[in-house]
């Protein structure tokens, strides 16, 4: 009964209710920011900003578009970060939901290689040396509630539910939108639990919207881990 998000960027209005709802529920502090000549703020995800609506202005076929991309951890089905960590006390997968979860133990590991392993450029290191990212609101989901960001979304840009339902819904919505947006596509729908639908080339939204070139390619660190302890990755997924 693993879970998934479906994020339909075509109806995201960048109200950013999700971005604040995340901080509100988790009690995360605000960052000190400046206006850098953009509405997007903070500039990037951080140890305390786990959900960020990325905004980009672009002209496509002589028409202006303002593209919105609510970025967050994809909760990969086979998470490279989990493999890179190779330590279930640090990074494990929740069996019931498929959520990929980080603990404070991450600070005892080679955090750089974990960060490097992520094809979506998600994990961020905090002042205490540990890593953080979206945890799928595991407390809420375990108690039958929607993740805070999904609950806040007014237009239905974000949905959450059974993986197979989300996968089905994403496909159905994609077919519906194909005539309006011929280049519409789902981003890595078979590899992640956060399925994005975008109307245009994903790179116009964000460099890491779709898995980067390292896509599920194991880094050197992961390869070493596997060599040293072939079962660690397996155990890590039992959570």
């Amino acid at each position, binding site marked *: 009964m693993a879970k998934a998000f479906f994020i339909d960027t075509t109806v995201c209005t960048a109200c950013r209710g999700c971005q604040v709802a995340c901080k*509100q529920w988790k009690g995360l502090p605000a960052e000190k920011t400046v206006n850098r000549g953009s509405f997007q703020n903070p500039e990037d995800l951080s140890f305390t900003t786990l959900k960020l609506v990325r905004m980009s202005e672009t002209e496509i076929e002589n028409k202006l578009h303002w593209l919105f991309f609510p970025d967050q951890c994809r909760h990969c089905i086979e998470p490279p970060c989990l493999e890179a960590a190779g330590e279930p006390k640090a990074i494990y997968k*929740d069996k019931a939901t498929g959520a990929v979860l980080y*603990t404070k133990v991450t600070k005892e590991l080679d955090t750089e290689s974990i960060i490097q392993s992520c094809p979506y450029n998600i994990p961020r290191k905090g002042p205490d040396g540990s890593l953080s990212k979206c945890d799928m609101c595991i407390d809420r989901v375990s108690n039958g509630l929607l993740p805070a960001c999904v609950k806040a979304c007014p237009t239905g840009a974000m949905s959450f539910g059974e993986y197979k339902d989300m996968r089905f819904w994403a496909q159905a919505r994609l077919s519906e939108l194909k005539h309006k947006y011929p280049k519409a596509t789902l981003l890595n729908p078979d590899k992640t639990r956060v399925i994005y639908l975008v109307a245009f080339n994903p790179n116009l939204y964000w460099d890491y919207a779709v898995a980067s070139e390292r896509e599920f390619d194991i880094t050197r660190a992961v390869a070493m881990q596997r060599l040293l302890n072939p079962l660690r990755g397996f155990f890590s997924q039992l959570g």
Partner: protein
Amino acid sequence: MELTRRQFGQITGAAAAGVAFSGLGSDLKPVMAHARELKTKAAKETTTICPYCGVGCGAIVSTSQTTGRVINIEGDPDHVINRGALCTKGSSLYQLVENKNRLTQPMYRAPGAKQWKPVSWDWALDTIAQRVKATRDATFTAQNAKGDPVNRTEAIASVGSAALDNEECWIYQAMLRAMGLVYIEHQARI
């Protein structure tokens, strides 16, 4: 207050995902202590309407039974307009309430003073009432220049407020009109 058909953020068609840490040795539990208990578990819940724009979204306020202060505010899924959704401002309501920048006592600034001084409610209200009376009595106009009866003072003005509840607005305008004010304005004008 009656909350009907409670579906406080329930995931449609899905049972709670379960809380067991199955498959791991008990020694792993502490480090994986991702809180599986909701911070709102023992809270008192009340419904409210968002105080920002005019859409009128519903929200649920969770208040701690021990501190009497807010733990969490999120959208009310039974509200027929927003169905649980909230925008940026609505989602930050908690921080409007639990905010160290809020005023927590009456303050007074004397003519020419460089600083605020905390004062008691009694003193503040007594003094304001005296100022109102003095200004009103000195400037009250029974008839205008043409001799028409007007029974007013043009030397006191009020602005506000769309941030008040209807009942507060009503008694406020009643009081101002009884005082004889004609310069009564608020956000709707601008």
